[in-house]
């Protein structure tokens, strides 16, 4: 008997999406179904997490065909870590949407698209099949294209065009990479791929061409994650999308790219070694990660600097938050770069990346929701029009402030631990003499200071200062404020009760690096 709970989150989201279509003639029922769906999703993820805590890796063979032939779902600590983030942000965003989005918008397609996006995200986190990953990516992406374009005005269509077309190119590249991997490695199943790459002779696999193919794939993930130089679409798309969608995009969708990098590059492709080593100046080693380490490092550095410097001069809240997202994703990639380069700190580094991703997911989604609340009330989030928010809406402002200082890394908010672990990773790598460890450390400090610079500026210009007319006369929807504050409370809760979170992240990092366990669980009885 299969552990049906593995598929439960995905099915809940899928059926919620389907149910919201015929329910569009009954707006209240539609809204209720949507929120209940998100709630049930959270419940299912919690149950699944319980099972994973007991059994480590749950494997689910769709259509009852064994791996590597059928499609496999793999629920382990890493998947669950990401699913947990998804469930929380999704619930908050959908509850936010129920009040925030216009009645017409909700009726026309919003809820269906939203939950299908969750379906895509969930599938991406659970699947153990690389082509299936492509499919769920596409599901997630298409819904996000539409949701970015949702308001259908000039900025929205323009942003959506850039976002859509770049990602269409990305999808073609992904297909190219998957096709090449299938041809060279001989499988689509990730565990099988890891096994074949680990013992290439046994399976007649030549790992040499695989590296270039994985690079293609990597660029696609970098595009999804919005890492420099694949970040171009981010600011406009985040601004254009409705606030709760941006919360999901920045909070969760971005992390799908990160998840894929961890899962594929650290669990799967790390298995491969190149018989002749890396024959390119500047790259040392004979495994794939040695190649990706420096590249990820440059990308992380670019992201941190571009995001941080970019955010400093934005003249609207969403702009600051959008560029901040580019910078913060750099902080997630940075430990991964270190992990790729310095094997000794790998578990710590991946845990750091995960904790940072979680923190950024919770925090940035909260900040975008806060921004949305302001936009709904004032009609704009341009600084010239929103001065003095703190006086008019202190509770919301406290929420925003907590988010801002969480991202800066002020304890005991959750964001602090992200920073702490990143510092730890880079510091340890530097102390161990890892190449670039000290540079990485310096970079993370610079990035952190930039974070302070742009958030303090945003705060002064938006929340302090003289009240604008719009702010003075605005009325803030209490239900929206409550959601923002609840998320802010969560930031504090995660920080104060950080130990279980850390243990979850460490478990996720351990499982991400435990290739053998992954392979054994998925290909049980095949060897």
């Amino acid at each position, binding site marked *: 008997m299969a552990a049906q709970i593995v598929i439960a989150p995905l099915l809940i989201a899928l059926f919620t999406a389907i149910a919201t279509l015929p329910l569009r003639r009954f707006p209240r029922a539609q809204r209720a179904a949507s929120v209940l769906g998100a709630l049930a999703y959270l419940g299912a993820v919690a149950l699944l997490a319980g099972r994973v805590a007991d059994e480590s890796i749950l494997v689910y063979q769709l259509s009852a065909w064994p791996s590597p032939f059928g499609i496999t779902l793999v629920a382990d600590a890493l998947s669950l870590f990401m699913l947990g983030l998804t469930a929380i942000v999704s619930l908050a965003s959908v509850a936010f949407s129920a009040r925030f989005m216009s009645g017409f918008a909700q009726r026309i397609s919003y809820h269906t698209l939203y939950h299908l996006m969750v379906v895509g995200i969930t599938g991406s986190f659970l699947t153990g099949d690389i082509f*299936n990953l492509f499919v769920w990516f596409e599901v997630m992406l298409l819904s996000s294209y539409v949701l970015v374009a949702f308001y*259908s005005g000039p900025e929205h269509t323009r942003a959506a065009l850039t976002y859509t077309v770049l990602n269409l190119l990305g999808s073609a590249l992904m297909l190219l990479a998957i096709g090449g991997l299938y041809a060279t490695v001989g499988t689509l199943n990730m565990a099988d791929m890891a096994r074949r790459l680990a013992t290439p002779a046994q399976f007649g696999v030549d790992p*040499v061409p695989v590296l270039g193919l994985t690079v293609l794939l990597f660029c696609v993930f970098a595009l999804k994650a919005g890492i420099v130089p694949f970040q171009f679409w981010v600011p406009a798309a985040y601004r254009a999308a409705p606030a709760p969608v941006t919360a999901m995009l920045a909070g969760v969708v971005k992390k799908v790219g990160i998840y894929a990098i961890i899962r594929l590059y650290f669990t799967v492709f790390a298995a491969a070694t190149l018989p002749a080593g890396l024959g390119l100046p500047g790259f040392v080693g004979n495994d794939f990660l040695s190649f990706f380490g420096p590249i990820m490092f440059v990308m992380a550095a670019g992201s941190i600097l*571009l995001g941080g410097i970019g955010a400093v001069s934005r003249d609207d809240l969403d702009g600051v938050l959008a560029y901040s997202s580019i910078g913060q994703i750099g902080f997630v990639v940075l430990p991964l770069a270190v992990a790729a380069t310095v094997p000794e700190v790998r578990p710590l580094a991946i845990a750091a990346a995960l904790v940072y991703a979680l923190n950024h997911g919770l925090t940035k989604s909260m900040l975008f929701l806060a921004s949305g609340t302001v936009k709904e009330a004032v009609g704009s989030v341009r600084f010239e029009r929103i001065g003095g928010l703190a006086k008019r809406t202190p509770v919301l402002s406290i929420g925003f402030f907590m988010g801002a200082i969480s991202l800066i890394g002020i304890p005991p908010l959750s964001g602090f631990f992200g920073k702490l672990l990143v510092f730890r990773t880079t510091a340890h790598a530097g102390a161990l003499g890892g190449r670039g460890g000290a540079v990485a450390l310096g970079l993370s400090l610079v990035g952190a200071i930039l974070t302070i610079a742009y958030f303090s500026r945003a705060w002064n210009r938006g929340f302090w200062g003289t009240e604008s007319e719009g702010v003075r006369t605005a009325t803030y929807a209490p239900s929206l404020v409550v959601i923002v504050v609840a998320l802010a409370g969560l930031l504090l809760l995660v920080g104060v009760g950080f*130990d279980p979170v850390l243990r979850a992240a460490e478990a996720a990092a351990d499982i991400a690096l435990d290739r053998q366990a992954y392979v054994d669980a998925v290909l049980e009885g095949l060897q």
Partner: protein
Amino acid sequence: MSLVALPTAIAEASTMGQLGTGAATLAQATADPAGVALFAALALPFLGALVTPLVYRALGERTAWFAALVAFASFGLVASQFGTTGSVSIDWIPTLGVSLTLYLDGLSLLISLLASGVGVLVFTYSAGYMHGEPGQARYYGTLLAFMGSMLGVALAADLIALFVFWELTSITSFGLIGHYRESESSLYAARKSMLITVSGGLFMLVGFVLLAFVSGDALGSTTFTLIGTPDSMIANADAMRTALENAGLFVPVLVLVAIGAAAKSAQVPLHVWLPNAMEAPTPVSAFLHSATMVKAGVYLIGRMRPLLVGDEWMLLLGTLGLITMTVTALLAVGASDIKELLAYSTASHLGLITAGFGFANQLGAETGAFHILNHALFKATLFLVAGIIAHEAGTRAISELGGLRHDLPITGIITAIAALGMAGVPPFNGFYSKELLFESAYEVAHELGGLAWLFPAVAVFGSVFTFLYSIRFLWLFMGEKPAGLGEVHRPSLALLAPPVVLAGLAMIVGIDPQLAVDTIVQSAFGSAVAGEAHTMSIHLPTELTPAVAMSAITILTGIALSPFYDRLRDGVRRLTHGPFSADWYYDKAVYGLERASGLALPRIQTGQFRTYAAWMLGVTSLLALAGYLAAGVSIPAFSDLSITAPVVIVLLVAIVGAAAVARAPSHIAGVLTLSVLGFMVALFYVLSSAPDLALTQLVVETLVLVIFLLVLNRLPAFYGDTDRGTVARDALLAGGVGLTVTISVLVATAGSPDAIARFFVERAPVPAEHGSILADFGGGSNIVNVILVDFRAFDTMGEISVVAMAALGVLTLVAMRGRGESS
């Protein structure tokens, strides 16, 4: 969570001689602190802060008394532990080796008592000062939280816990400095202090992280506990030092921690936030700049001293402290506002404390410990006095003030006590700690010789200016009242009582310094030395020691220069223009960054899709090619696979079609040519034995054509003319992408996966022998279809979701037209 007291462990460690904290302290105080009292003292202000909004609703302005009560309770709780030493601990993040460990010893006791004690007075004072001011609930709440944070800094023995409270002081002070949030200068000041102190904190955090990293080697297991347990860092200071040096991390850690402390304690060049911070309400300034915020930095230096003291330490902190002391004293002379004067003076005295702790001899530690107390007493007094002046005289401009003794006689007296203490004039309190500095500096110079003689010289030089501005401040009460100064009111009791109490305490210290030493300074001093601390003996000098001579030189030079004060002031002001002004580098950095950002961003995020796509495709190609190159792929030899003529022709037509699309003269021509390509791809599928694909391709092709036509029907004819250069560049990039793909094809066709395909081929059809229900086979002859609806039906599930979403998307795009956000 477990609340555990660990005094016995401390005792054991001390008998083993490993405990770096002063043995004298331990000899005096062996009782354990009560965990409940410490945690309660720490928690009360935060709880108070949380309920302040409610309290304010009930009590209004009398919330000040509530806050004072809370502060007093904390003070009482801390004071009740007087004489105890040891730590209490609550588990926090065991996985990380982080706990909420509180440790009480002389130094933390001193800082806690100052924070909560001065807190009581500041709240009392606020009751008068803040009358009628806006945002009082916020004010008291934040101030309470700030005070709690400061207690936390003092009490926390775990580096992470310490950092928590450290950053909380920065954040809460951000709120306090920005209290008048509609004033641009308040916002500027708040942001500046946050940027500098929080950033400094992050450097310090890195230092902590490195310490913890090294502790893994030194102590066998990674810990963040600095002090108070047998396996804390300070309890194993020697091992830690060795490990730090072995790892080459001693200097990095020292510098990182020093940056954090220097930012907080406004050491040059990170002092620039301090004068602006005067934008805060005056009670806040009094609090932040006497007993709390800035003291956190020097406290940390004192706390770390047993662990890190040495030559590097002295070179760094001794120099830093003296430079700060001198430079900021000069700046204080140049001040035009009484709060500005006091602010620079604060930085200067913190420089003195830093220098004291910086000197590697015991006298240095004495200096630091004693001056923490003295400075808190006289500086808090003076700030409160400044508040009274500003409140009652209506101005803070030095040039507009004078002769205040007539209207404010009591204030005049307490100002005299505090200002003379600040000036280092015997027998006022500041004199003794300054003497200790001179002694310490002299001892260092004497011992090391050479350039080390700069230490005492600079100490004297800086002290001259300290003397000068102190007297200048006192002179506000002397002379004649300027004509422009209007009526000066008498301060209320709430305003007057707190500075009187403080000045009284300062007076007592001045009269009987040994009392203060015995009560608390000795034990605080003990906390700051590695190994055995000697017993302090402080009294007025009875013979001419070098230090006495230095004091004499200072005072006499000061008196001699007094007549030229205005010229000096003008000189300093002339100097502090341009790059030497307080805001220069900060403004350059911050606004330069903003400007650079504003200039650079449009060049990166151009809005031009072409740029974006070019980057994406170019970088991807480049990296992939690098990947192939790095791995050393070789192009496979010609294989014997044959390709038939029809396939070649079909592919040729496809290429021609694609080329024709690329140069199509009109939309319609391009769409039709694209269809040719589509047909050829379909044919390719036919010839590759893929009928399902061919069918799919064909039907899709047609529908795409129809949609294209429907859309083109509504589009203009634009197809852009591009200049040759652009075309050439694009062609180059296109060639690069093409090359990447070509190589990808060549290298990837080497292998041929058949194991999986074979499984599908064998399991798809209906086997000859089967029962009435067939579950282990796909039950269909079209293997592709069986894969789609059975083997990989999950893919198809996603695929149809995409189709559904495409439909919803199109519907949405059209239906939402004109219904977007109102902005």
